[in-house]
């Protein structure tokens, strides 16, 4: 297996991009990454695109060929593949690109993620997103994403004494980080009171416990590590890649306060890298709800089970904390255009490891982690990165 590096990253702003179409944002992020990598279009061998539901959000399928075409790559007939695993689509696309380069089949691969979620009504959007859950056992009975994560939150509070305030602290911290990220959807600091006074969505989760719907795209360029220095002085190596699955329905899990898929994916990634959670300086985790970040930092091993809320409250996950979590603002403040999220996480980690994260820079960041989840944890993808 060859060692693989990221040599270019790019992203659009995340948010309500009313003036841009799906192909606009896909191209914008892709071109930014290609320009950052200083490669020419004819050097690209393959394209992987993470996307959850363009077919239902914008009634367009076959989007990998579409993006290749409108990026001017049609005449090069590159291999263009769409990857789908609900919220983990982006992370999984990155893994496919990684495998393609590692295997020696492709040399230069662009991996993008894009979602245009705001062209449909809120209700429709919720129905589309619920398609990632179990249609026969969950959705049909009225369960939605917030409803299921609310069950997780309630159980976590019951089992471990996690408090309403600690949930709020996740959102407050991520908004603080988002305020330092010029591409974040929300660049405004909030307080515990903002979160706890916001409208109820599914008890105990309120509006500010939930990541927003967003339009946006992000992309990276991969190549063999051996060749990376031809393109950049600071290649970022992907040193670990782990993927895992679990039961599709939440109620089939042994323990709804633990995402076994996250644990398994992390284990595999750490094993490949020959590292442990203690080596990680900065992590982008899947905080689609505030409770999700608490589960993630426990299941990734940063904190013991049940201690995630307390650690957040103690400030251990802030920029100056023990482990800087979601420096981009996370899904909560950076935004969550589903298929783009996994790539946006990688873009942030690369930016951190390059030392270019400006006001939100984590000091001496050397090893970074991304954690991308689909559904309520039926898919998890974890990647580890290091300055090459």
């Amino acid at each position, binding site marked *: 297996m060859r060692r693989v590096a990221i040599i270019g990253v790019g992203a659009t702003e995340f948010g*309500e991009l*009313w*003036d841009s179409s799906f192909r606009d944002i896909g191209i914008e992020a892709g071109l930014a990454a290609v320009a950052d990598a200083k490669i020419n279009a004819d050097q690209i061998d393959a394209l992987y695109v993470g996307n959850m539901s363009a077919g239902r959000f914008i009634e367009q399928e076959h989007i990998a060929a579409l993006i290749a075409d409108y990026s001017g790559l049609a005449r090069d007939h590159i291999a263009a593949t769409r990857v789908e695993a609900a919220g983990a689509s982006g992370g999984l696309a990155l893994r496919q690109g990684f495998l393609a380069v590692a295997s020696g089949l492709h040399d230069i691969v662009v991996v993008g993620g894009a979602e245009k979620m*705001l062209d449909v*009504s*809120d209700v429709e959007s919720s129905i589309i997103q619920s398609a990632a859950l179990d249609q026969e056992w969950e959705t049909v009975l009225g369960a939605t994403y917030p409803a299921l994560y609310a069950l997780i939150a309630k159980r976590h509070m019951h089992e471990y004494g996690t408090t309403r305030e600690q949930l709020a602290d996740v959102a407050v911290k991520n908004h603080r980080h988002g305020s330092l990220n010029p591409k974040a959807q929300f660049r405004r600091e909030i307080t515990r009171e903002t979160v706890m006074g916001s*409208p109820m969505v599914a008890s105990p989760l309120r509006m500010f416990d939930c990541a927003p719907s967003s339009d946006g795209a992000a992309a990276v360029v991969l190549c063999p590590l051996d060749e990376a220095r031809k393109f950049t002085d600071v290649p970022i190596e992907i040193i670990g890649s782990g993927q895992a699955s679990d039961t599709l329905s939440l109620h089939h899990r042994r323990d709804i306060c633990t995402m076994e898929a996250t644990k398994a994916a992390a284990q595999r990634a750490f094993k490949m890298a020959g590292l442990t959670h203690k080596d990680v300086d900065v992590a982008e985790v899947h905080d689609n709800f505030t409770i999700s970040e608490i589960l993630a930092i426990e299941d990734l091993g940063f904190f013991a089970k049940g201690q995630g809320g307390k650690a957040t409250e103690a400030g251990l996950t802030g920029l100056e904390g023990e482990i800087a979590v979601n420096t981009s603002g996370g899904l909560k403040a950076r935004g969550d255009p589903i298929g783009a999220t996994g790539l946006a996480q990688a873009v942030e980690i690369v930016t951190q490891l390059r030392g270019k994260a400006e006001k939100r820079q984590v000091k001496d960041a050397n090893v970074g982690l991304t954690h991308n989840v689909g559904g309520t944890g039926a898919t998890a993808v974890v990647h580890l990165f290091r300055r090459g």
Partner: protein
Amino acid sequence: MKVGIVSYGAYVPRYRITPEEIGKVWGTDGKAMSKGLMINCKSVPSPDEDTITIAVEAARNMMRRCDVNPRDIGALYVGSESHPYAVKPTGTIVAEAIEAAPNLTVADYEFACKAGTAAIQTCMGLVGSGMVKYGVAIGADTSQGAPGDALEFSASAGGAAFLIGSENVIATIDKTCSYTTDTPDFWRREGEMYPRHGGRFTGEPAYFKHIMSAAKQMMSCMNTTAKDYTYAVFHQPNGKFPSRVAKQLGFADPQVLPGLLAPTIGNTYSGAVPLGLSAILDEAKPGDRIFAVAYGSGAGSDAFDITVTDEMARFHREKAPTVKELNSNLKFLDYATYAKFRGKILLGGD
């Protein structure tokens, strides 16, 4: 020839309902809604009121304030998105009611919330070209909000009428310009009871883009800034949007508050800018300059630069109620009565 406003009149139903009362029924936090929208209450038409009666009341108030012979009115346009008839004009009934019929041209206008200002522009053209001596432009609505929809917290009723001419004008219309695109932010199809909308899409790419574009176009044409105007009025689907636009354009509260009626009347749709302008004319003095920008979904904005003349000192404002007077002596409704008034309760056989 200086074309302008010769007279004006307003009308707002006296019934009100609060967001808290509406929220109670739908399980929505009415208080938060009220704060977010900057709407304390909205007007509700009684069962005997519709766009026609509102237009007639406003037109009659307009005629009370001047000595114009109604037979000299050569054109009358009523802008609304709630004309009681799909086929049969509102305007003919209004023309008869103010004794302007039969020697005049009449038509109903529809351009979501800005049909009333489009009527003003048409009358300016007809008067300016000498085709008619006076034209009447009315914006009036009993706007619809589906039960439980966000619109229900704001959709209200009211209207105002303007007599446009070139003699004895109390305010000259120095300039008008428009900004129009095909932007489907809000619509109601034939036969549908309630309009539909694109949620947050009605904000930035619709309301704000069009109002700001028309406003900036006007300021650049007239070489003005916010400081050159005594008053400003913007379309007000709620209190928040116009306040934000005013701030972005550099207007201060004393310029904006006299024409900001959404907090106490709600969104009167085609009546919104006409009513806000009426409230400003209720207190304006000779020499005052007014900046007005309407917005209609679908979408377009009409901007106006208006200067109050010395004629205002001789104008009989007192012969008809001011907007402030219309906005007093209120009766607050509970949701059940409101639902009955608005025809939201469908009886068997309906």
